[in-house]
């Protein structure tokens, strides 16, 4: 029995993620020119273990929403709930984040960056080192564990950031345009790898992107937001089967879903 237990805590979790809800979120920013209404009555549900995309015109409040889910920004009105409980601050054990590449700490090696969330929680050195090396292996950086960010390419840095997001085994992973700084080929490859990792542990993922192809390829559901003040225009179920393959991109369904999202964004931008 004891042996079995060891294996379980060691393997990349058996948990299936937690659900996350946004309830009537309205947010105003104080600016030099007065109050700015960024989000208006935003509500949605992200089911446990699903991969949900967030798309919308620039400035519609996607990043702000993500910060709220991470507990780093409190909404003016409404609430974010994880497993029904209101989020009022960071939940490092439940929620992992991946921002754009600049969030890696440049004075730490790839391994130390991946370990960082565990280090903050006071996890034993050997345990966190083992977990970090395993995650780095999984994202194909087994040979670069002792390199600092300035010695890595853009794609490698994002792999490190993804490894860091998964390393502490959170229930929910929030990603804000994690591949935005990468060329198209690299981002396709990384998207594919992300799905691979996700397939193994089925975390709840919220993924902000500007790439509609990426949104359709990765997600179970895509939330389309309006131009500022951000509102949810439509929730689009991505009916493509899993596991996803590149061939699906050439299918009619894929094209229709992509076109539907684009149409919504084009309309809201025109207003």
């Amino acid at each position: 029995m004891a042996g079995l237990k060891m294996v379980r805590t060691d393997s990349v979790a058996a948990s299936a993620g937690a659900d996350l809800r946004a309830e009537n979120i309205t947010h105003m920013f104080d600016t030099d020119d007065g109050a700015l209404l960024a989000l208006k009555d935003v509500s949605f549900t992200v089911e446990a273990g699903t991969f949900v995309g967030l798309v919308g015109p620039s400035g519609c409040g996607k990043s702000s929403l993500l910060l709220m889910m991470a507990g780093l920004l409190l909404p003016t009105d409404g609430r974010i709930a994880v497993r029904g409980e209101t989020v009022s601050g960071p939940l490092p054990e439940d929620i992992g984040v991946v921002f754009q590449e600049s969030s890696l700490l440049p004075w730490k090696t790839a391994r130390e960056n991946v370990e960082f969330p565990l280090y903050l929680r006071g996890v034993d050195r050997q345990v966190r080192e083992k977990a970090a090396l395993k995650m780095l292996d999984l994202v194909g950086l087994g040979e670069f564990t002792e390199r600092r960010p300035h010695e890595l390419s853009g794609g490698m840095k994002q792999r490190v950031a993804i490894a860091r997001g998964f390393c502490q085994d959170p229930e929910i992973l929030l990603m804000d345009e994690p591949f935005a700084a990468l060329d198209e080929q690299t981002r396709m490859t990384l998207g594919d790898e992300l799905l691979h990792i996700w397939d193994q542990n089925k975390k709840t993922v919220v993924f902000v992107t500007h790439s509609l192809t990426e949104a359709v390829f990765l997600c179970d559901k895509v939330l389309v937001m309006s131009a500022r003040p951000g509102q949810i225009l439509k929730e689009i179920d991505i009916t493509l089967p899993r596991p996803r393959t590149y061939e699906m991109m050439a299918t009619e369904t894929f094209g229709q879903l992509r076109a539907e999202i684009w149409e919504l964004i084009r309309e809201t931008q025109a207003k």
Partner: protein
Amino acid sequence: MSHGLASRAGRISAQIGIVVAIFLFWEVAVQTGMANARVLPPPSLVLPRAVAMLGDPVVLYNLWITSAQVLLAFVLVAPIGIAIGLLLGESDYFGRAFKPFFFFLASVPKSVFLPVFILAFGIGFTQKVAFGMFQAIFVLVISAIAAAESVSSDFLKTARAYGASRRQLYLDIYLPAMLPVIVEGLRLGMIFNITGVLFAEMYVSRAGLGHLVSTWGMSFQMVNLFAGILLAAALSIAVNEALRWYENKVGAWRG
């Protein structure tokens, strides 16, 4: 060839070679009469004199006075300068109000204020320390402002999302992010500080390396003068290089 030069040993021997070449050229210039030996004594006289000075109690006493002034000024001004810089860099309110003030003053040549320091502090130890501090404080403040502003909000956002405590934010984000810039500021501050103390000693004083050098110059003791200059240069270079070594060590990640 280029490989040998690129390597560390090759680079160091090339650097030593250049220094030796300069001294050789200096010697030859004096010996051939290209330079006037009464104004520029040859290194074959200056170098042994500089070494002999290190055993001379009068010179050692004056060296000690200068070092004590420089060190005391540095120990006093470093925390003050860094604290002011961090406050201005971190606080929007103080930053907006007082940052321009420091940037303007930094561009004013500090040496014109020396007479004011003599009136305020006399011509002794205290005045030298005060003037060294005054010379150093602006560059310290400005680099501490730069250090505070170099801490990316993305680092803080990520660390907070992963549950960093306030203490962890300071020790694991602010400190390592700012350290290389702060040490660079300390190094520059030290150079200004040494310059300030030596300058004040040369202007008017009763002791110190600057006092000696100035006396030797005015009484036309050229060998002593150049030996004194060599000592002052060696001292400053040693301090500067030590701080630069530390700066590179804590800032290796800057690539």
